[in-house]
């Protein structure tokens, strides 16, 4: 029986997260107490200038990095103090990653690049069929045998998306997915992601410079100097918008 009085669980919760990097003698505070919640099925776009902390924030959610302080809860699990092995498991079971530079392995075909995600997860059953299905979902069903060098930039990024979704993760995190593409191709790639969000119910957390991608989002957040806001911040002025605070 459902307890109606129970507080609704967010899929992703970032609570007052700070991340400080030591660069030799210099300390850089990339996140200064960031707060964020993302619900299941959302398509969240985080915009912000270079150095605002977007990628660092995504790394905390995607299990690539852990915060210096604060809490990160993903799919009900507090991953803040996860060990390296636990983070690996988190990435394998819950997250799909998309990178700006595609990072496809040139010696593998599109289908094999997608299948690599399954091999890493040690889940190789029917991998060729599953990789083909994932490629079909991104509109590359007929290009599985092509090597990255035989694909355009947009197609390469779509292969990277297929690689992220082939494991059927709950969340896909994308770091500047259109940053390396021209405007038109970028839009096509963004549309593919949106379709996956709507048709497959996958939650997307996307950081980008690209404002056009925000049109597809059901939540747009803005990062400035290590903090998350619900409105854009100008570089000169002091933050005026409301900081996003976890409920």
């Amino acid at each position, binding site marked *: 029986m459902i307890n109606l009085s129970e507080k609704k669980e967010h899929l992703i919760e970032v609570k007052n997260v700070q991340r400080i990097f030591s660069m*030799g*003698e210099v300390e850089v505070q990339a996140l200064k107490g960031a707060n964020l919640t993302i619900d299941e099925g959302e398509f969240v776009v985080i915009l912000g200038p270079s150095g605002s902390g977007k*990628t660092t924030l995504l*790394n905390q959610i*995607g*299990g*690539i*990095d852990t915060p210096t302080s604060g809490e990160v809860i993903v799919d009900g699990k507090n991953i803040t103090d996860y060990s*390296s092995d636990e983070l*690996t*498991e*988190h*990435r*394998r*079971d819950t*997250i799909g*990653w998309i*990178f*700006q*530079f*595609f*990072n*496809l*392995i*040139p*010696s*593998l075909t599109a289908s*094999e690049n997608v*299948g*690599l*995600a399954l*091999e*890493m*997860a*040690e889940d*190789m059953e029917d*991998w060729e069929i599953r990789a083909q299905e994932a490629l079909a979902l991104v509109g590359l069903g007929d290009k599985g045998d092509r090597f*990255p*060098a035989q694909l355009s*930039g947009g197609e*390469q990024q779509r292969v990277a998306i297929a*690689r992220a979704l082939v*494991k059927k993760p709950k969340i896909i995190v994308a*770091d500047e997915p259109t940053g*390396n593409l021209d405007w038109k191709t970028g839009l096509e790639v963004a549309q593919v992601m949106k379709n996956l969000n709507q048709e497959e119910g996958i939650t997307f957390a996307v950081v980008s410079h690209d404002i056009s991608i925000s049109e597809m989002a059901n939540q747009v957040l803005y990062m400035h100097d290590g903090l998350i806001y619900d409105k854009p911040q100008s570089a000169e002025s002091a933050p005026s918008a409301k900081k996003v605070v976890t409920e």
Partner: protein
Amino acid sequence: MTILNRKLLRELKTSKLRSSLIIIALGLSIAIYAGFMLGYKNIEASFDLSEEETNYEDFRVSFSNYTAIANITSPEITTVIDNIAEYDYRIWQPSALKVEGEATEFTAYIHGVPGDRRPIVNDVYMQKGEYFTSDNATEVLVETHFAKAQDLDLGDTIEIFSGEGFVEYTIVGIIWSPEYTYVTNRLTMLPDWENLGAVWMPIKQTQALFGFGDVFNELLVKVENKELIDTTINSIIDEYQTENTIVSATKKEDEPDTYMKNADVGFMDDMSIIFGLMVLIIAIFVLYDTISKVVESQRNYIGVMSSLGGNKWKIVFHYVKFGTLLGVISSVVGVIFALLLSYEFMHAYTDILQLPITDTDYGGALPYFGIAIGVGLLITVVVSFLSALKAASITPREAMSSAYVQQVYTKKPLPERVLTKVPGFKSLAIRIPIRGIMRNKRRSLLTFITYGLSMLIVFGSLGFVNSFMHQMDYYYNDIEKQDISVYLVNPINQTELNEGLLELDQVIKAETFVNGYVQISVPETNKTRSTEVYGYDNPTLRSFNMKDDSVIEPGNYIYLGSILAKFLDVEKGSEVEIGDTTFEVGGILQELMDQTAFLHYETAQELLGLEGLSTGALVEVSDVNLAKVEILESGLPVAFLIVKSEIYDAFMTMMQAVIGIIFIVIFVGLLVVALFSFNTVVMDVMSREMEFVNFRTLGAKKRTLYKVIGAQGLIIAFLGSLAAIPIGYLGVRWFNTIVEEMMYIQTKINLSSFLITIATGLVASFIGIWAAVRHVRKLELVDVTRNRVNT
């Protein structure tokens, strides 16, 4: 097949050059070790079979004066001495011979053997013709090396010097004998393939030729139980030693030819390990360097694999497999090359030595193949693991960037701060390589050492040739100053010999000596050896390079060649025995073929029972060829002459073959240096591709690329060469100690060898620099900036 395995195979296929380098280096190391070992085993087996076929002796007994055959045939020696399985007697007499129609006189070793039957021990292998028809036939058999060198065939005639004149004999057979595999001159202990004529003739003919009665001077013995060989030798010496006949015995392994063979085969054994190891070390570095750089160049792919949830050990294992697969391919290649190498090696060797029978010993060599492959694979796995370990520490964050900057610089390295103060060294083309080298000091140091090691083959080989040539020049100029050594058939009064020689027109100076074979032993040990002793009286035509500047003194002092002293395990002040006389070792000589012992003239005369007599003389002459004829026709009882220049030339001819082999080794060394240099420079540039792409996008010209890449390559080559020199010097010294059992060689390396080594390093480096610049210039900037294509 898993996706990672597909990746592995495709990357191996696309990186043919890199993979080939590893396969060549590792395969070469396996091939050298296993190939030489198999060659060595096959040659040993061929030696054994050839010796078995000719029933080669276990030991040879020499009688300093001729002994009547009746002495050993009645009663039969086997009834007097235990443990003799088979024996035969013969005459061994050094002399001179002339080939039909030619004036040149060659040193001849005459063997008087039974003419009516084949020798029971030390038979000959008939390569051409037939054995003697009778005991009285004026027929001879000629040893194959000499026959080949002098183009002698059946039916040709040769003339043998009898002490009074030359007597003609017809060649009825060309033979091979295990006693002359290397055709070692018993006096000089040096091989002489072209000018030493070993001849067999019926013993009755020999006795008639030299005017002997029914006598012999050598007894060849095969024993029943080899463990009792020393007792058997001692029994023979006790039985046959008389006041006038000194009996000495030489075991098969101490025979000049067997000694040369064992030293040569042992040398081969050492070389297979040394060169195999040397190439293996280089292979280890190439493998380590390559996998490290592959891991480095694939950081962001590793980051992707990690971000996809890949277990870090699974990723490490992927790169270990890369190395292991190369190791397996290298083993296959290595084994094939080892078989080819051993085949070629054995045939080249047996052709030179004219071995009539060849045999193989694959079974005996199997463990060495096992060792080579086992060690090769084990090292491949371990090195691959160590070099791939870095992949475990690569985080998924590396997948975030197209050109993740792993290089963290926080300060300028000291060499840069110093060097950039020098005018002309301020450009970035110098700073960048220095920072690159100093960033990972341990790896750079390893690079220099391995570079040095690869050049060690070149430097070591040149150094050995230098040392050897220096020792030869030293020995034949500063030690042996005579032109001719005269050896007599019978000892004569020393004044008579001296005056007889000085009467000759061509003779400027003559100094007599006395020599003979004795059995030298070390008290309270089982060390014993048949040795030639010489007695000199302060000669001016012969110097002695003695350790501690000792001089030959009268009394019971003996002076031993360093190789002989090492064999007997004695030093200055130790005691040795010859017969019943005890001698104190008065000094150790360091010359060349140091297996001789020296005494003061009078001490030697007394020891050999030759008071007032000489057995030969050292002579200085005006014209060697005229003097040879004059001496042989002088009426003195001359047995044979040793002409210093001929020995030197013979040795140099032999050394030409060795130097030829050494030049092949130098070529292999150059190849290894070039491959290593290529790998180091090219791989380094490939791992820093983005850096060079940036240069090109900034408009860097070809010249600038050459400067940046060249500076790093040249620094590595120069420092590597510097590392090669001290290692090489020690290597040559060590090399010289390996051949110590055969000859004494002092380490002397010419300046040109140092310069050639450095030049080799630089030239090899240029090959790598050229290839690296070519690689950078061929990169498509658009592709690289859009999507890293390096693999």
